[in-house]
C-alpha cells in the first residue's frame, strides 16, 4: 500500500509534509553554534527552499487552515460563511454512527493489512528472492496490478464480482458453488471482498519493497550463518528479519496510512454501500460534502481524518521509525 493509493490523497500528503516540517525545525535547532550564513548561502537557501515552501504553504498549510475555519460553520458551499456553529459539526460527526462505523472500517482494513498482507508479502518476496525458473516473469506478474490505476482495477473487479460473473462461474466450475456469495451486495461480506481486491492491487508494492530490502542483505552473513550450522529457519529468524526491519517498518507505515485514506476503489465499487457497510472516512467526507452539499460538516470530518493520520504519523515516526531515520532526522548530515 503506498502513497499513490489515492490519486490526490491530500491528508496523506499533509501528514507527510507535516512530518517534513518537523524535520526541518528539528534540524534548525540542532545546530545553534553555526556561524552566520553568508549572503551566498542565504541566496542558495532561498532559491532551493523557496519554491517548495511556497507550494507547501499554498497547498498544504493554507487549505488546512481554511478547512478548519469552514468546519466551524454550517455551510452548504454557496454564499458567505455566516452560520458559525462552533464545534457542533465535530460533535455531530463523532456521534454519528455512520461515521463511527467508517472509522471502524478503516481500522479493519489497517488491521487486516498487518495480519494478512505483511506475512503474504514477506513470504512471496522471500520466494522470489531465490533462484528459480521464470523469476523475472513472476516478479512482473506480482507487480502488474500495482501499476494499474485504482479506478481501472475497481471497474475490472466490479465486473468480475457481479452475480453470476466470472468469479461465480469459476467457483461453480471447480465445485465450490456452495461458497458463492453476493460479494458486493452482502453487508457482512463486502469488507472482506474489498480487502481481497485491495490486497490484489497493493501486494505487489510490498513485495517489491521487501525484495529490495532482501537484496540489501549481504550474502556473506547468510554464508557465515550456514557455516556456523544455522538452519534456514534460524537464518531467516535471526538474520534476515532483523535486517529487513527498516523496510518492514516503512511498509507498515505506508500500509496503515493507506488504509486510513481508502477512497477510490471503494467509491467506485460500492459507493460505501450497501447501507453504509463499506463506508470509509474518505467516502464519508465526499458523500457529506459533495453529495449532500454539507461543506462545513465535510470539512469537520476531513479535519478529523487529518488529525488521526497526523497523530499516527508523528507517533509512528517517534517510536517505530526512530532508529531507522536516526541521523537523517535527529542530526544534521554532512
Amino acid at each position, binding site marked *: 500500500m503506498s502513497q499513490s493509493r489515492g490519486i490526490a490523497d491530500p491528508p496523506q500528503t499533509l501528514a507527510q509534509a507535516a512530518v517534513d516540517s518537523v524535520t526541518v525545525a528539528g534540524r534548525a535547532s540542532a545546530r545553534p553554534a553555526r556561524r552566520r550564513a553568508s549572503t551566498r548561502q542565504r541566496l542558495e537557501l532561498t532559491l532551493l527552499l523557496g519554491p517548495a515552501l511556497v507550494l507547501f504553504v499554498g497547498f498544504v498549510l493554507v487549505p488546512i487552515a481554511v478547512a478548519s475555519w469552514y468546519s466551524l460553520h454550517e455551510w452548504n458551499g454557496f*454564499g458567505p460563511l455566516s452560520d458559525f456553529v462552533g464545534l457542533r459539526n465535530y460533535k455531530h460527526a463523532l456521534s454519528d454512527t455512520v461515521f463511527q462505523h467508517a472509522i471502524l472500517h478503516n481500522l479493519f482494513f489497517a488491521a487486516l493489512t498487518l495480519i494478512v498482507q505483511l506475512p503474504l508479502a514477506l513470504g512471496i518476496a522471500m520466494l522470489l528472492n531465490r533462484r528459480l525458473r521464470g523469476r523475472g516473469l513472476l516478479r512482473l506478474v506480482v507487480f502488474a496490478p500495482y501499476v494499474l490505476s485504482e479506478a481501472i482495477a475497481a471497474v475490472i473487479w466490479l465486473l468480475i464480482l457481479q452475480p453470476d460473473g466470472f468469479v461465480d462461474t469459476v467457483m461453480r466450475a471447480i465445485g465450490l458453488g456452495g461458497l458463492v456469495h453476493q460479494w458486493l451486495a452482502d453487508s457482512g461480506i463486502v469488507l472482506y471482498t474489498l480487502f481481497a481486491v485491495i490486497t490484489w492491487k497493493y501486494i505487489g508494492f510490498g513485495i517489491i519493497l521487501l525484495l529490495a530490502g532482501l537484496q540489501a542483505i549481504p550474502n556473506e552473513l547468510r554464508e557465515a550463518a550456514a557455516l556456523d550450522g544455522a538452519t534456514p529457519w534460524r537464518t531467516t529468524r535471526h538474520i534476515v528479519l532483523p535486517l529487513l526491519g527498516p523496510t518492514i517498518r516503512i511498509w507498515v507505515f505506508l500500509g496503515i496510512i493507506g488504509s486510513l485514506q481508502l477512497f477510490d476503489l471503494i467509491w467506485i465499487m460500492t459507493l460505501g454501500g450497501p*447501507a453504509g457497510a463499506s463506508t470509509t472516512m474518505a467516502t464519508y467526507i465526499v458523500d457529506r460534502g*459533495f453529495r449532500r452539499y454539507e461543506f462545513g460538516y465535510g470539512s469537520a470530518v476531513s479535519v478529523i481524518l487529518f488529525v488521526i493520520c497526523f497523530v499516527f504519523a508523528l507517533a509512528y515516526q517517534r517510536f517505530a521509525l526512530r532508529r531507522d531515520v536516526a541521523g537523517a532526522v535527529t542530526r544534521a548530515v554532512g
Partner: protein
Amino acid sequence: MRRIPTRGVLAIVAVAAAAAPIAACGSDNGGGGGSSTSAKQPSGPVTLTWWHNGTTDPLKGVWQQAASGYHAAHPKVSIKVQPIQNEQFTTKVPLALQSSNPPAIYQQWGGGQEATQIRSGKVMDITQATSPWIKQIGQAATGWQVDGKQYGVPFSLHIVGFWYRKDLFDKAGITSPPKTMADLNADIAKLKAAKIVPIAIGSKDRWPDAFWWEYFALRECSTDVLKQSMTAIKLDDPCFIKAGNDMKAFMATKPFQSGFLGTPAQQGAGSSAGMLANGKAAMELQGDWEPSVMAALTKDKDLNSKLGWFAFPAVAGGAGDPSTTLGGGDGFSCTVKATAACADFLKYIDSAEVQKKLVSSGAISLPVNPDAASAITIPAVNDVLDYSRSASYIQTYFDIALPTSNGQALDDAVANFFAGKGSPDSIPKSVNE
C-alpha cells in the same frame, strides 16, 4: 446527478480525487439571493461558456450544432462548448459558483438543488427574459422556478414508470400490463413460476431505490400533502409511513434479482438496465431515458420493439391520485457572468428546431416543446408522453425537489431500508431531522 443516462462503464471515475478540494477552494463571496435581470447588453462580441453533460454522442453532437447554429444567426455571440462528465457537476458547480469565474451557462436539474445554488448570488434571474415564450413549454417550467422566479429552463422532461419486456411477459402468460398492486403481485408470481427475474433494480446507486418509495408515497398521499411537504421540508403526514409499510410488504415478495444491493443502475450488461436489455429480467422502474441506456448495453438491435411501458400501479386505499407521476427534467441556468444572450440561447434550445433534433437523434426522449413530439420514434416512448400529458400532477423526484442535503439523506434512508436497516418511519424522519 443521473437524470441523463451515463452510458458505458467508466462513468464513475470522476469523483476520485475529491476529498481535499473541500478545503482547498472557494473564496468568500458576499451576496445572498439571486441577482436581478439587469443583464448587460454589450455592443461588442461576447463569448459564453457552456457546461453541459453531453460528453457522448448523440447529445454532444446536437449541442455542438446548437452552439454553432446560434452563432450563425447571432454572429456577435460565440458559445464555447464544454462537455463535462455528468457526475462531475456535483463537485464542479459549487466550486464554480463560489469562484469569480463561473461558466455563463450550466446544466441545471431544478428544484431544491437549484434553490441551494441560488444562494451563491451567481445564478441569473431570467424571469423577464423568458416570460414571452416560457408558456409554450407548459407546466414543466415550474420545476425551474424558485419563489416564483425563473432561474433555469428545462429542455427535456423525465417521467418514471415501468419498462417491461413484452416477450418475457408473453412467456409467463401475462396478457396485459398490471393496473393495480394486486395485478403486479400476481404478475410477479407468474414470472417467478416461469423462472424469470420479475424486476431488476440498481440499488448500488441508491437513487433507483428512492423511485420505489417515492411512488408508494405518491399513491398514499394526496397531491396537496405532497406539495405542502416539499415546501415545508417536512414529511410528517402519516401517509409517508404508510408508503414505507407498502414498500416493506412489497419487498417481502422478493421481486428483485438476487444481489440487487450491489447492482449498478446503468454501468455494464450486469447493471439493472443491462439485465432488462438482455432479457435477464422482465421489468424495471426507471426513467424515460431507459431505452437509450439499454441500447448501449446490448447487441439486440430489435430491442425497442420488445419494450413496453406502464405507469406505477394504483394502491388500494391510498389517498393519492393514481394519475400523479414522478418525474423531473434536464435544463440549464445562466449565471451573472452571462449576458442577455444567454436567456435567448435557452429559448433557441427550446425551439421546435433544436428540440426535434434532440429527439430524432435519440439524445433525449421527451421534449419540453410539444411541437417536437412528432419526432418521437420509439412506440413505448409515445406511451410515456401520452401518460405525462394526462398526469394530474408531476411530482419532481424528492431528492431534487427538496434541498440537497435533505434529499440525499432521504435517498440514503431509503437505500438503508432496502438493505434491511431502518423501518418505515425512519425514511420520513431522515428528511425532518
